[in-house]
């Protein structure tokens, strides 16, 4: 298979030599080399990210661990395989974009950026403190490697659509990835964006829905259950893939399929467990937006070690 973007690699001074290792693989420069990580390596990075997540939320005494732990496997799977970016030049204009629309799950993003070396341990240690690189909700003004200022739900898919339209106008094949929460689909603007994506025949935009079934106050079935999210996106003209959002093979397969097809927008419904990886946080609405106590942190770190 021909390597896409070869000219661009030369223009940014990266020597692209590595043989692609899957049918859909695009060459990606990151972690200081061109790599695509295997399942075991990805799961190990996700484990380290989980430790970052619980530690930074504990240290801050506030934050959203539940939705960060449900989302992190997909994020690691994306950055570790198809996502085109340059860790040494996070502002590279023709990078793919990752738009974290559920901006309260910022610890997941910060942990990924930390593992990539884009932000430091001291950055994540200062999470939510005055002047910190790591604001409470992800913010492109404050953090290298963050592509969107989130925090108000329902806006990221529209922003991603704007990035996708601009990329097409520039004849760039960069892919735009948006992550939204399942509760976030209660915002009407999500469906405005879904409709406009189909109308404008956008194929370089993909959305992953973190389907953990819990929102701020309680389970979605109590607050406002949306039902079959995949069927709804499908009815708006999107290709839909349903996956176990903690199965790295399913994650990377779905990412590969969506990345390689720039003719259709993909909605990947990632069925996840809120708080995944920390027993007392799993499927527990109270850890949507609560920090673990000192004692709970010890237990969490034991479970993640």
């Amino acid at each position, binding site marked *: 298979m021909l390597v896409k973007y070869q000219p661009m690699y030369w223009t940014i001074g990266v020597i692209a030599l590595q043989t692609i290792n899957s049918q859909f693989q695009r060459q990606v420069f990151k972690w200081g080399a061109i790599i695509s990580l295997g399942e075991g390596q990805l799961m190990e990075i996700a484990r380290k990210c989980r430790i970052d997540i619980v530690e930074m939320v504990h240290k801050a005494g506030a934050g959203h661990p539940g939705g960060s732990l449900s989302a992190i496997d997909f994020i690691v799977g994306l950055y570790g395989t198809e996502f085109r970016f340059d860790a040494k030049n996070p502002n590279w204009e023709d990078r793919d974009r990752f738009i974290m629309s559920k901006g309260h799950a910022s610890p997941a993003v910060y942990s990924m950026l930390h593992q990539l070396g884009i932000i430091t341990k001291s950055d994540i240690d200062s999470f939510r403190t005055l002047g910190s690189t790591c604001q409470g909700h992800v913010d492109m003004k404050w953090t290298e490697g963050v592509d969107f200022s989130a925090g108000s739900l329902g806006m990221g898919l*529209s922003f991603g*659509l704007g990035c996708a339209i601009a990329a097409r106008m520039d004849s760039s094949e960069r892919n735009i990835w948006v992550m939204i929460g399942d509760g976030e689909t209660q915002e009407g603007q999500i469906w405005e964006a879904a*409709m406009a994506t189909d109308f404008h025949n956008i194929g370089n935009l993909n959305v992953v829905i973190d389907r953990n079934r819990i929102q701020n106050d309680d389970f979605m079935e109590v607050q406002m259950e949306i039902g079959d999210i995949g069927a709804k996106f499908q009815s708006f003209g999107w290709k839909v893939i349903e996956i176990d959002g903690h199965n790295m093979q399913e994650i990377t397969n779905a990412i590969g399929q969506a990345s390689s097809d720039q003719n259709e927008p993909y909605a990947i419904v990632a069925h996840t467990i809120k708080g995944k990886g920390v027993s007392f946080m799993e499927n527990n609405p109270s850890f949507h937006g609560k920090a673990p106590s000192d004692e709970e942190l010890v237990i969490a770190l034991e479970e993640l070690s």
Partner: protein
Amino acid sequence: MSAPSTGGASRDGYGSALLKLASDPRVVVLEADLGKSTKSCLFRAEHPERTVSMGIAEQNMMLVSAGMASSGKIPFASTFAIFTERAFEQVRNGIARPGLVVHICGSHGGIHTGTDGSSAQSIEDLGIYRTIPNMTVLHPCDDLSAEELTIQLLNHDKPSYTRTARNKVPRVYTEDNVSEIKIGKGNVIKEGNDVAIIACGVMVNEAKIAAQKLSEKGINACIVDMHTIKPLDGDLIHKLARQCGCIVTVEDHSVIGGLGGGVAEYLSRNIPTPLEMVGVNDRFGESGDTSDLMSHLNIDYNAIVSASHAAIKRK
């Protein structure tokens, strides 16, 4: 070149400016099923590949604009002024907070909307956008100044909101002098020492009529086109307060939070001066012929004359 006594509406100036800006390939236009009204249709006809129809979905339009701005484009997004308000939080959180340079145009602002009635009469837009950090807020008075200010936005490094009006009004500027106006600088269009009338939008023309009436009573009013509501030209306001000793603000907008509010904030902090405010007095509008409505709501030239007398008495 002598200017005609009447030109187009300010929305026409916005449309013609977009056409002139098209030579910059970064410029893109977004519309929400009102392109024929806001006049972005002129750009669409010439440059459909750079025009994005968002349907009747203003919230989506604002964030799509933000995404495009983050990707190197200079988006000009328009709809009715009142419907930009529907997406206020999107403008606040999605555009202004990250400082993405999106230029929003709300046409049919104020009660100059035709006879649709209060649902379409935005009388709070200038006030709400003025409260957002990073935003520039413009309200030109005629088609020529609307075109000039919109063209200047190409090199403006902040997001902006421009209110245009539906109706044609006599031109305040000529093609020869309009290039003298600058974003952020109020423009004195008639000197005077008895009272300073600071107006914006379609009310600049009413202020000119009022000044004529006042001159018949021996009162020499200074008239200012304050086309930039934010950042407000404090230096000019200061000078006018010293020069005239009293001020009247005039706007097709609520007296709360808009031009009058901004001038009041400046004066009370810096140079307390008698101030009268002509505007919609904390009420909604209604259907009606525009001139009838202006009279009914006390925002026509008669109201400006009365307010000027009141301000002068308080000196």
